[in-house]
């Protein structure tokens, strides 16, 4: 077993190093940072317009950078109206209000975007090497399962790196576009949420890896994986609808298999999210193995 684990570890490490060497890791990290930073920047523009409108009403000069009114809005309990729809319960709202304002925005944006980035990344795991048949040479020295899970782990490491850089994108917006933001607390809170976002993305990475085993065409694999991710959202929406209330046993059976069923547990103070994170990690491995019956017997 140890030899097998060592093989998978080496494959993961090699995969990560190759991604760094070929700059694909840099592209992925920058894309993540651009999306996170872009989302944060868009939020700051909305905030700026709100502050300018308030400044005109209060007959004080407008500013070019937003953020001056946030502390006051927080103290006056006005920010809670913006954050309440995002967090759900009043307890979590209390916690969210203590965070710098861009942190919950980053978290919720990443919850929506990361699944699709993870699927796209996962779709490249095996498919290109199946297409050019170079996978056969690697398989001379290790087993298919080791190769598959090793590459999954390598992609997961890459995704972790991209998630950290994405947090950096949001932090940069906070530091340069806004005023009066606690930069150290902003960095700490963003980094504190990063492991949760990484774990959240793993099941979707697994879906991409599964799609990658089914075809040698990366684009087809991406389409399959994105379709599966989209289907998971639609399925979750149906389970949450009145139809789901009429079929409780089905909900109990299917909801734990959907990453979205564990999503809300990732939000909140303390380490209560770890157990859900562990399940998401396990779901990632299980999803990656969904196409194993095909890939394990495939003529490469």
């Amino acid at each position, binding site marked *: 077993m140890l030899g097998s684990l060592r093989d998978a570890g080496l494959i993961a490490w090699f995969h990560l190093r190759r991604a760094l060497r070929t700059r694909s890791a840099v592209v992925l990290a920058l894309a993540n940072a651009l999306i996170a930073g872009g989302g944060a920047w868009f939020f700051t523009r909305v905030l700026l317009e709100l*502050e300018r409108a308030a400044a005109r009403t209060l007959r004080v000069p407008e500013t070019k950078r937003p953020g*001056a009114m946030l502390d006051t809005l927080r103290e006056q309990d*006005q920010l809670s109206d913006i954050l309440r729809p995002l967090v759900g319960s009043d307890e979590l709202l209390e916690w969210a209000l203590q965070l710098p304002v861009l942190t919950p925005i980053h978290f919720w944006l990443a919850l929506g975007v990361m699944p699709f980035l993870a699927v796209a990344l996962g779709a490249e795991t095996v498919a290109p090497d199946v297409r050019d048949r170079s996978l056969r040479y690697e398989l001379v020295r290790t*087993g298919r399962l080791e190769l598959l*899970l090793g590459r999954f782990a390598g992609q997961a490491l890459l995704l972790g790196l991209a998630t950290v850089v994405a947090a950096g994108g949001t932090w940069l917006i906070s530091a340069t576009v806004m005023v009066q933001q606690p930069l150290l607390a902003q960095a700490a809170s963003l980094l504190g949420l990063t492991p949760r976002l990484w774990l959240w993305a793993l099941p979707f990475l697994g879906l991409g890896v599964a799609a990658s085993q089914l075809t040698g065409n990366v684009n087809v694999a991406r389409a399959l994986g994105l379709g599966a991710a989209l289907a998971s959202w639609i399925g979750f929406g149906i389970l949450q609808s009145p139809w789901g209330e009429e079929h409780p046993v089905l909900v109990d059976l299917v909801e734990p298999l959907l990453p979205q069923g564990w999503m809300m547990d990732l939000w909140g103070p303390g380490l209560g999210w770890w157990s859900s994170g562990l399940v998401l990690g396990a779901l990632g491995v299980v999803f990656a193995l969904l196409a194993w019956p095909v890939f394990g017997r495939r003529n490469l």
Partner: protein
Amino acid sequence: MKQVAIAAIALVVGLVLGGLKPKAELREVQTEQAQLCAAPCPESTVGRDLAQFFGGARTMAPRDESPREQADRLAEENPEAAAIVAELDAAEGQAVADVGEALREVAEAGEELELARAALELRRAQARAALVEQADPDRDQLDSIDGAYSEMNESLSSLAGELGDLVAEGREPTRREAMSFAADALDAMLTAEEAVDGVLDADQRAELEDGAVNPFSHVDPALVDLLIDLGQ
């Protein structure tokens, strides 16, 4: 690697299957709770039975008599008491309406003052941000500016406190005293404005919009609390 894959699959399968029974039990309890909450409570006759036991059935209303019928019967038997009760009812209705109106007025006044406080706080925060953005003062300059406005607010608080003491003594300020208070308040604001002007250089002053250094924009919202005390 097989063991890792099996462990992950076992964890997921265990979660799904292991969660079925607890979730079903929870659902049952929730259904029962919902039914209990929705069902009307059966009318208890314990109190009436006890009262009849201790007070004697003679003074109690017959079981089949409604409260309305009971009230009518008592009014017929005691016309004077019925008149007094009617007067009390009318007075109570008026009193309830008066108290309600007074409470509504207090609540509205409180909300307005809360809004005024929030507006002052936002105004102050925005004015300071505009000042920092437009004049770009260094750390020492900013400390001096904050100090000047802080002194101004202390002076204004002190003046409001003096005015409050005067009102607390039960006398209204005379015209001369009121003018003196107003002059002192304006003086505190002028002093702050001059201090801020002195801290900034000509280029910085040229960049500033008037509202950013307007002392009225930097008034501490805590003054609203003092004004509330004065109003009371």
